[in-house]
């Protein structure tokens, strides 16, 4: 019995709630019908609404409490166990976090051993830190990193005990809430009860909850990066981050972590990408919206848009394995190369990444500009034609100036895409942080560094890892600014012609 009540598994509890809710559905429905003498015309709402109301009253508060409990309990247990570990117990070169993961693993291992029936629950609580405990656990299929010190064992026991106590109260309280919900709803159910209004306002609350998830996500993004960024600035001077001149992370400490070389690489690559994408995209849009017949338009437009649907990893591979080597053949290899020059040494360079990113952005620029050019009223064109202008003169002197704000908005949106793009630069731009004007050199970008600082075994207490969050926040602010500006310009322009 104690075993059942202290279990950490959520499934039995959820099944219990579901059973109560299902029972509530039929009980409430029957009760409403009975109070209306079995004639549903005497009811305020359709009979099923009384049932749904019961389901809602049983399940929603219980599940809400359950999920909050699931989030909060581990944090409370963790923090009180951490307090129990004396500072001297943390071995040299380790951290409390690492020790805590050992504690948690040991506790899980003991739980597994108990549930497998290898030892009884009482024995598990009384285990002493004998030297062979680690080997014994390994035999049970539980791997522990370091040797088990008495402190770790004690903490693990406390961890297990507190978790069990928490689970016990959780199970009881949640079950009681569900039961109380059932009793209350049965008491208020009768023919006069406005069940439909209750159910509908419940559904509406659910809809509002879903809609506000967007806000929650944004808040989550900002907060998660903000806290770690503050941590970073506590460890590393912010002046070096924003105004320093070199990027040289060093995991033994004392690194130069300045965003400027990365920002330079990012902007340089984006600039080249826009240099490719804007003319091609713009002219394609002009041709498609002004000259092309319906047939050409119907084939060329979707074909161009395929470019936007191709995953960026494909472009990355294309840059690394096709465009890069082709550029090396052209600009590198000395005498053997096509131009006979030795300007480029490796396949990764600003030009490689920029060109490929430009290809990716073509449909982005073209379909946005296409929409904007189409929104220019026909009367403006007709006026220009009437004055004797040729088609191209009309486009250059009337349509484009009228559409210019929108086109600028489209270019800004494309620029924000280019700055935030990751896979192409990870594979195509290289890993050397420098500020140089030569497009044939490898440079690195903000997104590439985020990936390299956060992948692999990272310790979330070192500035070398935390800098990724500061970079991420900078990137977020940068792209957000561009997007807001672009949307503002586009919206302002649309109003002009509506």
């Amino acid at each position: 019995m104690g075993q059942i009540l202290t279990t950490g598994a959520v499934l039995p509890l959820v099944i219990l709630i579901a059973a109560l809710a299902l029972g509530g559905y039929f009980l409430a429905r029957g009760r409403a019908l009975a109070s209306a003498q079995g004639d549903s015309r005497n009811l305020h709402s359709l009979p099923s609404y009384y049932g749904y109301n019961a389901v809602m009253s049983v399940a929603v508060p219980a599940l809400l409490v359950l999920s909050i409990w699931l989030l909060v309990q581990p944090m409370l247990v963790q923090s009180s166990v951490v307090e129990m570990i004396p500072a001297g117990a943390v071995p040299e070169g380790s951290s409390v976090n690492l020790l805590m993961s050992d504690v948690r693993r040991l506790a899980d291992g003991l739980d597994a051993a108990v549930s497998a029936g290898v030892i009884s629950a009482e024995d598990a609580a009384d285990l002493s830190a004998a030297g062979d405990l680690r080997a014994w656990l390994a035999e049970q299929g539980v791997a522990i990193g370091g040797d088990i010190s008495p402190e770790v064992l004690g903490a693990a026991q406390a961890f297990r005990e507190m978790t069990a106590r928490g689970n016990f109260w959780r199970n009881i309280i949640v079950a009681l809430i569900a039961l109380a919900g059932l009793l209350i709803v049965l008491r208020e159910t009768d023919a006069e009860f406005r069940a439909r209004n209750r159910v509908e306002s419940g559904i509406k609350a659910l809809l509002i909850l879903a809609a506000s998830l967007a806000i929650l996500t944004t808040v989550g993004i900002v907060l998660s990066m903000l806290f770690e960024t503050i941590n970073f600035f506590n460890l590393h001077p912010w002046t070096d981050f924003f105004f320093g001149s070199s990027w040289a992370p060093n995991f033994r400490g004392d690194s130069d972590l300045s965003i400027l070389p990365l920002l330079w690489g990012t902007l340089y690559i984006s600039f080249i990408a826009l240099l490719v994408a804007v003319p091609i995209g713009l002219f394609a849009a002009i041709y498609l919206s002004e000259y092309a017949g319906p047939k050409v338009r119907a084939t060329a437009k979707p074909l161009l848009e395929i470019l936007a649907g191709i995953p960026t990893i494909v472009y990355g591979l294309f840059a690394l394995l096709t465009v890069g080597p082709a550029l090396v053949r052209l600009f590198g290899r000395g005498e053997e190369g096509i131009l006979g020059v030795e300007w480029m040494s490796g396949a990764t360079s600003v030009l490689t990444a920029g060109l490929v990113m430009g290809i990716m952005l073509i449909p982005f620029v073209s379909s946005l500009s296409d929409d904007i050019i189409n929104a220019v009223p026909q009367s403006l064109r007709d006026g220009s034609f009437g004055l004797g202008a040729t088609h191209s003169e009309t486009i250059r002197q009337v349509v484009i100036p009228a559409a210019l704000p929108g086109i600028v908005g489209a270019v800004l949106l494309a620029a924000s895409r280019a700055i935030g793009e990751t896979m192409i630069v990870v594979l195509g731009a290289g890993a050397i942080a420098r500020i140089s004007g030569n497009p044939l050199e490898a440079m690195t970008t903000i997104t590439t560094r985020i990936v390299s600082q956060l992948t692999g075994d990272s310790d979330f207490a070192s500035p070398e890892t935390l800098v990724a969050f500061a970079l991420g926040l900078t990137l977020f602010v940068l792209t957000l600014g561009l997007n807001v500006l672009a949307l503002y310009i586009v919206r302002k322009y649309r109003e002009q012609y509506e």
Partner: protein
Amino acid sequence: MSDIPNPAAPIADPRGASLLVQDGRTKRRNAAEDRFKLYGIVAITIGLLMLLTLLFTIVSRGTGAFQQTFVTLSVPLLEDKLDKNGNRDLEEIKKVSTFGYAPLLKAAFETKIEETGIETELKSKAMADILSKDAAAQLRDHVLANPELIGSVVEFEFLTNSRVDGYLKGRVTRESIANDKNISAEQLDLVDALVADGSLAKRFNLDFITGADASDARPEAAGMGVAMIGSFAMMLVVLVLALPIGVAASIYLEEFAPKNWITDVIEVNISNLAAVPSIVFGILGLAVFINYMHLPNSAPLVGGLVLTLMTLPTIIISTRASLKSVPPSIRDAALGVGASKMQSVFHHVLPLAAPGILTGTIIGLAQALGETAPLLLIGMVGFIASNPPESIAEGLMSPNSAMPAQIYEWAKRADPAFYERAWGGIIILLVFLISMNAIAVLLRRRFERRW
């Protein structure tokens, strides 16, 4: 403006003698017109050419991955090597490691040379080296599955190593192996002889599609299968979470939301989230789901959650568009016969908007399927995804890769044999994306209603 004749000048026809002959200025203007038009055509041609180059590169470099070179050998499964006690006890057979199988492979090569009469100066060890490092494990798995075969001689198709495979595919040439210690010219002579004999050949390799990833030294054994399962698990999470939440949010915003600043904030938020770089979602996932909630690293569940947040704006935007396209007369009619606002939405508007919602969802899923950057941050790369999960729960919680992450992983390994597999992986990924988009287009054609 300069076309206005100067009244002081003598009145003469500025165009010259005939309307049918163009004067210089008109010619210039018409030439400019043609040039301008040409720029547009050139731009579109460049765009389409890029698409063509990209697709051609993918297909020409990737199709090789679907073929693999196999060599057929007759292997004597000697009883004294594999089952010393002769009692066919599976536990005892399992004790023989792959090293125990290597001599059998050497012996098999020696018999092959005798049978075919190929002349070579290679030692049997060097001969066996043209096989994949996976060959012994292949044989062992086969024996463990069929212990009754011990004692007999079986015909078996072995993977060759990636250099031999590259030689048959033209990637490796006799010049290029000068400094390669993995293969020698004599071994290639043997390969040529075996090809002439017919026992070494390329054939379709299903294992590339269904198999698991393999370590750095065995590119010939690597496959996409496990990563594919990882991708499916993530898509399941995205579908289960993003569709209901997205539809609920759109219904609220489109049908119920009052016009006030809170609604405005939500709407601005959604349109901004759609443009947030995907790597930022990866940082969010790392910070919230892994560091804060302690969900397992590299798990498809976490990947699915991150992709859900990323896909939500797409689904919300398309769902709102299809809700908007249901005419108000439908709502009015429902309200007119006494339905509540909620009933009119759920009983009438939503079913009519369903095809549009479905189309938008599929396109959102396709987007999520190809996304790589956030997966790098939550750790779905950098290991060998070699064990297919055994249950759905394990498929969600145990570390796995995903298709694009697997492609990235292969691209990083800097071995031409893995590059080939990366391109092949892209073909598989694109097949999925194209079919999803085709389904979306078909759905739209089939069910779209114009009111």
